[in-house]
Structures are given as structure tokens and as C-alpha cells.
């Protein structure tokens, strides 16, 4: 009889997507026997996006909440036609503790940025 490798539905009071490793029954496997569990701890992605072409100076990007801790903010500046640049290469990113926005300080007129913000309070 084949092993059950996937489960979708209510389990232990939570709705889940779960898949097991080969040879493990998804309904009885220990955590290390699962290849994926939608309830695993991960950082909650809060917001992501791409800006319009920005002038030099400060641009505030709104956030949906304020934070007890600090958000993890990734920002990249589009560079050429095929690349991005990280902070310190033409821009800086700041977040003022307790605020509901972060700021891109841009030194390259007309640059476009993409950003992804994650909550340090886990799901």
C-alpha cells in the first residue's frame, strides 16, 4: 500500500498544508520526516514592492504597523539593465524605532528600488 505523502486540512486544531519525505507517512511522521509544514516558524512578510523612479533625497515607504522589535528590511536599487545594488552603493535605508514607515535616502536621481519587509514577530 503506498505511503500517504500529503495532507491538506484540519489537523490538531490548525489548518495545514503538509508533505512528508519519501518513506514517511505524513500523518505519523515526526517533524524531521516532513519536507514541508505550513505551520513552521517563519518571519511574517509584511509588505513588498517596487518604487517609482525616485529623486535624490529621502523617500518614506509606509509600513502597515509599528514594531515591538525591529523589522528586517531588504532594499535593492536597480542598477543597469540586469542587476541590483545593495545599501551603501548609492543609497541608504533607515527606520526610526516605533515608526510606521522606513526611509530610502537616494543619491542617484531617477533610481528605482525594490523592497521586502519582514516582521521580527514570528507567525
Amino acid at each position, binding site marked *: 500500500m503506498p505511503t500517504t*505523502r*500529503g495532507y*491538506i*486540512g484540519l489537523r490538531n486544531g*490548525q*489548518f*495545514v*498544508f503538509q*508533505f*512528508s519525505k519519501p518513506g514517511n507517512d505524513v500523518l505519523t511522521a515526526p517533524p524531521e520526516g516532513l*519536507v*514541508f509544514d*505550513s*505551520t*513552521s*516558524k*517563519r*518571519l*511574517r*512578510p*509584511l*509588505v*513588498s514592492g517596487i518604487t517609482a523612479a525616485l529623486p535624490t533625497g529621502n523617500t518614506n515607504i509606509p509600513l*502597515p*504597523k509599528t*514594531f*515591538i*522589535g*525591529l523589522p*528586517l*528590511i*531588504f*532594499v*535593492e536599487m*536597480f*542598477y543597469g539593465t*540586469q*542587476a*541590483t*545594488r*545593495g*545599501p*551603501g*552603493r548609492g543609497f*541608504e*535605508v*533607515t*527606520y*526610526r*524605532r*516605533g515608526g510606521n514607515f*522606513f526611509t530610502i535616502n537616494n543619491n542617484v536621481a531617477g533610481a528605482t528600488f*525594490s523592497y*521586502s519587509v*519582514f516582521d*521580527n*514577530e*514570528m*507567525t
Partner: protein
Amino acid sequence: MVGTRRLFAGQLSPGDWRARVSKPGNDASDPNLPRDKLDFDTAWPFAGNIHAVVSVRSYGRLANEATIIPNPQRINFPELPYVPVVKCFCSSPTGQIIYWCYQGTNTTIGTVTWEAYKDHVDFFTSGSVRIDCYMVVVVFKIPARDLAILGNDPHPLPRMMMGKRGSDYGLYVSRPGFNVQTCAKSQMIFSSDDTFSVVNKTYAPASSRKGAADSPTANVTTNINFTYDWKGYYPIIFFFGTFNGAQNDQIYTLPADKVVNTYGAAYPMSALIVSTSPGVGQVQIRRWGNEVWGNASIIVLDHPLPTD
């Protein structure tokens, strides 16, 4: 009585295929449901997580010796159809220490910056990397710049499946324009058999503190202790913080590998993250002034650092 639908798998809106789990009382099939009302969504950028952790070994050099590492150092990773989000830092050969702009005798790492492409990163430092270390690039499966936008989804390409795909079983969602049954893993928004970087621990104290250095030349460190669950290896740890003169008006400088000055540009702060023993970590920040308020935030990922 009909309950609220908390599981959804299918076409959420035209061209947008997803699987989701909503929080109690929220309809998972509502395309306008905000992220904080969801427990899981295959479209979340972190759902795909780490694409690769790649590194180049650098060996220690004395101050009067030229570095043998070019600047920038090119570090390749398996090609993606987009430019990914990356995070760069240096780590010790045992994986026990992660360096953030470290400055010591004959052991210098300047500020780390980078340029990312779809298959490599150019790793820059503001000074020579003279320290015995790995230059590490964490490549997230998060698009920073899409290079393969194909316009509207050319229906009827199947874009979501649950079940057997090749020899794997799982949940799969492909990017617009790619057949989920036949496309490469790199052409997917989500595949449940990816390597997922589960979070081991986060540390984010609610209260501010001041640094320990009482002068620009005080060669003391401010230490922040934390613990994590030991999984048999030294893990990737991210550190970031806020620093400023006021307790409740601190400016957060990102990323943690950027120089921050609390005593002026001539005396930059520098720091490292060390696992003093398995499961026990400490951030050591040099030249954090005793009049400067700050806050720290730490994220430990269940993912090993490269080692010799």
C-alpha cells in the same frame, strides 16, 4: 451553518494561483485579505526562502601584505530567472563568528556592499579582507528585480498542482508563463520541497540600552547575549539595530554590515556575532558610546554556515 473558508487552493484572481491558510474568522479565498490575516500563502516572498548559500574562502594576511582577494570578489550561484535578494557577510572558518565590519590588529574587514545579478554577486569591501574567513552570500528565493516578466499568463498553462511531480510529492505554483508540470524549480513561485529556512529564534528586546564605550578610543565592546536551539552546526545569524543620541528617537541603519559612527567618522563602530558555545551567542559591538541609545534585533536561521 457554513463555516468560514480557511483553506484555499486555486485561482484567487485572474492569473493569480495560490494556496493559503487564513486566521480564524477570515476567508482564505478573499483576494483582498491583508497579510496579517493569513497564516500561510504560497505567494509570500519568504515562502520560497533560501536558494543558495555560496562563499569564497579568504586567508589571513598581515597589514603589510597585499590581500589575495580581489575587490570586488565575484561569487557565483545557480542561475535564477530574476535578480534575487541577497545578504552578504564574512564568517570564521569554523562558522562560529559572523563579522560585521570588523577592525582589529591585522584582522580587518571593511564595510561590505554588493551588486547582485541573476547568477552571481560582486562582493565589495571598503578595505582589504585580511582576515581568515569565508565571504558568504545568502541568496534568497525572493525576486529583487524580475528579468523574465512574460506579460499576461498564457492560459491554459497549468500553474498550480498538488500531488506527484516527477519523483516528488508536494504543492507547486509556477510563475506566469511556465507550466507547473514541466518547468524548472527556479521557474516556480513556490515548491514545497525547497529548502526552507525555518527560524530558530528571534531576539528583540522592547527596552533600549546605552553602549559601554566611554571615549572614542576606549577599546571596549558592548555585549548582547542570546541563546538559540543547537541543531548540530553554527547557524546563519542576522543582526541589526538602531543607534542614536535619544532613547526614543533612534535611527535604524540597515543592513547590520554598514558602518555606524557614535564618535564620528574617525572612530567607526564595528561588531561581530560569536557563538561562544553551541547554542549560546553574543553580539560584540566595539565603540558603542555610553551616551548613545540603541536597540538590537537578532534572527537565527536553521541553516549552517560554511566551514572548513
